[in-house]
């Protein structure tokens, strides 16, 4: 009797373990609630707006009855989180790829989106990730970066008696030479201006160096590809000469030599510190994009007034750069999981369209997410109000300047970027000369493009 009982117990234990698995599988297969409503999952890329997405999910549920579960990856961990989640029963239906390279990694999971409503409303079709006429990623936010400056401090400089330049306003800064003169003279007068340095710390800590190895490197790469007429979707992107490396060096030297921080200790600086320096008025300029507004605004004792935050293109001494604009583009593309059920894929496409077309959705996009959305469902008035986004729109619509696209989406790999960031740090610390940095750049590009 006892024996039978214990065997029964053992079987029950095992049974519960396995039924547990079973139940999950069933859920994963259909994700359909009893009332015919569907549940979709979205893996969010931007941790700074995770709470807004929770509210959006609630609003979406009230309007349509479908459930949206939003999960957020920790900063800098999106690919890891996505890889971990994709293998489970709770795989995201909507996820995000960062351009052609991201598509290459996730091609088995990207559904064709060319027939979705959202794609039809995309204003600039060339922004989407397309392969052989099929659409795999829809950009949902346009962002721009450049040199952000605090007009209050530059005006103070222009009014300074001791200044040794002739400049009277930032409008006169149209190329690298003038920028260099201005910055170096401002640095000399930094005490009178009440700043620690002109530029915020060039954050070169591993993982915090994307402003240089990705964003700043975009500009010389853009000029080189542009000059050689390189088709960005072809294999021609696999080699590079880094022809404009001297120009990169120009601006990079300017950043690290006229900074709040000694260049030998830049290896432990992080982006948050740079943005805090700017927000507290300890520096006049910082290179970053419009997403940084929440960081500037979120700092206690922030002394920078919204109306004084302006953009300057990143000049580095290339011929004809007087006509250069900001770097505007995107690396945020919606993708829909092709392995999800058809019903889920349909609801997922409905949700992203709802977010960028319904009154409720658009209100969230403009006021809470503060995205500049590239869709014709938005009128000119329906735009985010934050000063950096306003500035980006202003530069984008300025017909006199050429906007630089985000070509860094074709950079070969994360390893390439990290290697270049590490070289830049060694250059700043003086343990590597520029020739080596340049050689490393082309070598690593070639290796990683295989």
């Amino acid at each position: 009797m006892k024996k039978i009982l214990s065997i029964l117990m053992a079987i029950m234990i095992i049974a519960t373990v396995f039924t547990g698995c079973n139940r999950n599988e069933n859920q994963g297969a259909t994700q359909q609630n009893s009332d015919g409503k569907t549940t979709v999952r979205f893996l969010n890329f931007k941790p700074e707006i995770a709470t807004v997405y929770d509210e959006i999910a609630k609003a979406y549920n009230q309007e349509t009855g479908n459930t949206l579960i939003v999960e957020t990856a920790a900063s800098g961990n999106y690919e890891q989180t996505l890889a971990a989640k994709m293998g489970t029963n709770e795989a995201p239906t909507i996820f995000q790829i960062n351009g052609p390279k991201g598509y290459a990694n996730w091609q088995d999971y990207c559904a064709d989106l060319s027939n979705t409503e959202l794609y039809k409303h995309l204003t600039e079709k060339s922004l989407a990730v397309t392969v052989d006429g099929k659409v795999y990623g829809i950009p949902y936010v346009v962002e721009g970066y450049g040199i952000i400056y605090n007009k209050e401090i530059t005006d103070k400089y222009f009014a300074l008696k001791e200044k040794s330049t002739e400049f009277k306003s930032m409008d006169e800064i149209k190329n690298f030479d003038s920028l260099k003169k201005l910055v170096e003279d401002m640095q000399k007068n930094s005490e009178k201006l009440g700043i620690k340095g002109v530029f915020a710390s060039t954050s070169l800590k591993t993982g915090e160096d994307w402003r240089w190895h990705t964003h700043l490197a975009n500009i010389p790469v853009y000029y080189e590809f542009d000059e050689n007429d390189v088709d960005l979707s072809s294999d021609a992107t696999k080699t590079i000469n880094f022809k404009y490396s001297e120009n990169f060096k120009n601006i990079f030297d300017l950043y690290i030599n006229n900074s709040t921080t000694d260049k030998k200790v830049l290896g432990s600086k992080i982006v948050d510190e740079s943005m805090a320096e700017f927000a507290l008025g300890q520096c006049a300029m910082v290179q970053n994009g419009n997403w940084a507004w929440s960081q500037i605004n979120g700092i206690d004792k922030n002394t920078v007034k919204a109306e004084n935050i302006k953009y300057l293109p990143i000049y580095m001494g290339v011929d004809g750069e007087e006509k250069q604009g900001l770097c505007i583009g995107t690396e945020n593309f919606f993708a829909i999981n092709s392995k999800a059920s058809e019903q889920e894929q349909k609801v997922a496409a409905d949700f992203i369209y709802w977010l960028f077309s319904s009154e409720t959705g658009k209100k969230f996009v403009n006021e809470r997410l503060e995205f500049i959305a590239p869709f014709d469902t938005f009128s000119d008035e329906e735009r985010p109000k934050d000063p950096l986004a306003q500035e980006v729109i202003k530069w984008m619509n300025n017909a006199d300047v050429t906007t630089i696209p985000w070509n860094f989406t074709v950079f070969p790999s994360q390893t390439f970027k990290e290697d270049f960031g590490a070289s830049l740090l060694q250059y700043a610390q003086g343990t590597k000369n520029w020739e080596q940095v340049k050689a490393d750049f082309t070598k690593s590009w070639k290796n990683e493009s295989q």
Partner: protein
Amino acid sequence: MEKNMKKYFPIFLLPTLVSFVIVFFIPFVMGIYLSFTRFTTVENATWVGIENYIKAFTQDENFLNALWFTIKFTIVSVITINICAFLLALLLTRALKGTAFFRTVFFMPNLIGGIVLGYIWNLLINSILGIFGYDITYSADYGFWGLVFLLNWQLIGYMMVIYIASLQNIPSELNEAARIDGATPFSILRHITIPMVMPAVTICLFLTITNSFKLFDQNLALTGGAPARETSMLALDIFNTFYGRIGWQGVGQAKAVVFFIIVALISFIQLKITSRKEVEN
């Protein structure tokens, strides 16, 4: 009773066995399988043979650099940790005031998580190097010694506790007899204490070797591999391979298998050697 135990032991073993198979054995076998494939997630793997292993050793110099750095690090830290821990244990088994207090103090760093320790020491080391206008990323040597120091600080207390337990087990008659025979303190240490604590040495060596070899979070938080991956150890290099390049997940997995074999081999040899030196009480 004995007979009953024998009859039922498969049943009592079953729950443990099942969970062992689910959480360890299956993932382990899958991991080995994935090292021979190209994959994005565990579900869509395609077989590529030993290509990943070839890539790990030929196309990626980082792996061998990391291996060399890890070996150097392990040798230095195993020696320093064990010597310091043993000396501390000797000191704190004397009849001194406050030994219990000091034992607790030395043990405490072991209770803090590695990633937190890494960030704390990053701040401390940078603020000291900052006086001279440098930081820990300036040279691989700074990172190396920073890591050695950090791991020492973390593990000395733990090893010390093991050594103390072992020291207290030495029968006091042995020491007394030796002293009456006129042995110097050094020869007592050499011929009685050390042979008697050999079992503890086996354990401590095993723990320190495997811990140093597998070090990850401290490495990630303290240096992150800077400058230029020169201070990245094997575990960090595997992590970076896995996520840093498109299509290299399989290579990361292959590196992980090689890593497992190395760690298993080294600790096996070490256990063999040191347990031979243990004496019966």
